[in-house]
């Protein structure tokens, strides 16, 4: 492997890692801060992708599609929390797993009824269709770099929000001691409802952004779900910084694994997870960091 190829592979790793972060960040919010195991997270990603497909053909405008999608996502997340998830905080994890698994089945079936089971493509917006030459024979699509840019923006935004704002402080405090925060006069239920809506919106945003490069197809959320959990567990449950580092780590391990050791590429990230957990059973970073 020469230097150019090596550098391109590093770029691939970072780009893949950033996308993983975007998908997993919503999960780490919901799982880490609210303590709910949300197996339906992959379904939100799938819903996002299908929404990009339907809205893009209706509006014909990429930015408008994303904006409408996000508004819908927040409303959708808010209603879901109100109707289903708010009953789960005090329950044991098994019940959470059962209900969110049920949601996966419901969402998949609804998708099948509403849109069908065919594979659909979503066009890359015209102003992002270009490519830039890289190395000798390869080009890099601008859309991929654009996605990476959005992922970085989201990462910085989340970090700032959780670390530096009053709302972030309340969320962190709520994760540590729910009753105490409540007794200070903060409406924790409402706060959580919005945190949950935010988590859903992140997954839906990830799905919408990924749709033009990956197309939309049945069952697309399932593989994403498992990867997201790996990211969250390696990074430390509830840590946004951890999810960021873990996602990049997985990006590198996965990319170079595929190049150097194909037979084991599928298992490598799980080996990475096992090693990290042996070394630091709580994940790389503590909750709330």
């Amino acid at each position, binding site marked *: *492997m*020469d230097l150019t*190829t090596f550098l*391109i*592979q590093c770029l*691939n*790793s970072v*780009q*893949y890692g950033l996308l993983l972060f975007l998908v997993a960040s919503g999960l780490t919010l919901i799982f880490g801060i609210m303590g709910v195991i949300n197996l339906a997270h992959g379904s939100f990603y799938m819903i996002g992708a299908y929404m990009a497909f339907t809205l893009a053909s209706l509006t014909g405008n990429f930015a408008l599609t994303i904006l409408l999608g996000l508004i819908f996502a927040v409303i959708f997340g808010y209603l879901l929390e109100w109707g289903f998830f708010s009953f789960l905080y005090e329950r044991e994890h098994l019940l959470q797993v059962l209900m969110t698994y049920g949601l996966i089945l419901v969402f*998949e*079936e609804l998708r*099948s009824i509403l849109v*069908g*089971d*065919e*594979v*659909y*493509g979503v*066009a890359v917006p015209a102003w992002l269709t270009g*490519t830039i*030459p890289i*190395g*000798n*024979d*390869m*080009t*890099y*699509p601008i*859309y*991929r770099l654009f996605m990476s840019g959005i992922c970085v923006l989201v990462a910085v935004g989340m970090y700032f929000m959780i670390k530096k704002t009053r709302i972030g402080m309340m969320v962190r405090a709520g994760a540590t001691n729910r009753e105490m925060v409540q007794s200070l006069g903060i409406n924790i239920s409402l706060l959580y409802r919005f945190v949950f809506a935010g988590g859903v919106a992140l997954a839906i945003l990830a799905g919408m952004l990924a749709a033009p*490069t*990956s*197309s*939309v*197809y*049945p*069952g*697309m959320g399932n*593989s994403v779900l498992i990867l997201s959990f790996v990211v969250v567990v390696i990074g430390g449950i509830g840590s946004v910084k951890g999810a960021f580092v873990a996602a990049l780590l997985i990006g590198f391990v*996965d*990319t*170079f694994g*595929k*190049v150097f050791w*194909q*037979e084991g*590429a*599928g298992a490598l990230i799980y080996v990475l997870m096992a090693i990290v957990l042996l070394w630091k059973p709580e994940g790389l970073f503590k909750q709330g960091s």
Partner: protein
Amino acid sequence: MRRITQQALSLLGSISLALSAHGIAQAAQDSVKVGMMLPYSGTYADLGNNIDQGFQLYIDEQGGTLDGVKIEYVRLDDESNPSKGPENANRLVNRDKVDVMVGTVHSGVAMAMAKVANDTDTLLIIPNAGAMAITGPLCSNNIFRSSFSNWQPGYAMGKVAADKFGHKTAVTVTWKYAAGDESVQGFTEGFEEGGGKVVRNLTVPFPDVEFQALLTEIASLKPDAVYTFFAGGGAVKFVLDYAAAGLKDNISLYGAGFITDGTLQAQGKAAEGLYTTLHYADDLDLAKDKSFREAYEKKFNRAPDVYSVQGYDAAQMLHAGLKEAKGDFSNRDAVVKGMSSATYDSPRGKLTLSPSHNPVHDLYLRKVENGINAYQGVAVAQLGDPARGCRLK
């Protein structure tokens, strides 16, 4: 005492069961129960539906009966889940008492069905799953395939890439699973017989769709050609990524036909100009295909595809068996003889079966032109499958 009663009861039960089974066998003279075990939900739901509709179309064209035998359906969703395969197939055979099983898309599930078919001596027609083992080491008198083996399109593409396009080196890319390995094996054999050399086999874990690392690897290897086997969402993404990475203009991309079947709308311009091989194309100049497409569109309000053809031919095979047995389904030897020796007028063209009961048919070279898989000529005429390890010769 209680135990004795129980034993007596269960004995009685089995006697009455045996009697009723006998009764069914008698009744089977005028009807045959077909167990359609297909993916009616999940990733392959579309394929399952098309196979089912193709099968129905043929039966309905015959007026719902084949040689005076009425066809009844039992439908079961296999969910493309191999771990439920044995249980589902057993349910069809033992609870629903089907005479023939038709299924399925997923090779892992089809293997489970083949095992159950052998254990219970039930007739099985496979309308898609391409695992070589089914008509290889697992081949059996009562197991038939109306589709293809994974090796066939790969071999044909290898031949064409070496002989027609004159490529010398190739890299293969596929998911790391049986179907991908077998397809690549076929390509490698065809390509190397034609004097080419496969320099590297690249794989990604199934069903991973992150290909960027492999595309970079291809760019640094600089082969003359790339052969690929993907289907569904993976096929769409690979073709899109390949074009976006700028490789399409420098290194020719070839594939087993599944990479552009049912996925062209989603692939759009990225797929234009791709050459693939398969036993079907969207614009075959055959009278049979034209009437088939017309009837299919009229009945179901949608265009048929290669899966519909495979379902249609599965029904034709059953008909050939019943014809030879003169409508007596219990005459298994005659049914098998009829099915395996017939020459079928398939929408894909002439179709016969090899001694291992795998299709022998023309493999077509197709090129994506204006959003359809356009016929370019015959890649390999009347190609069978090596059927390695099969006892039926």
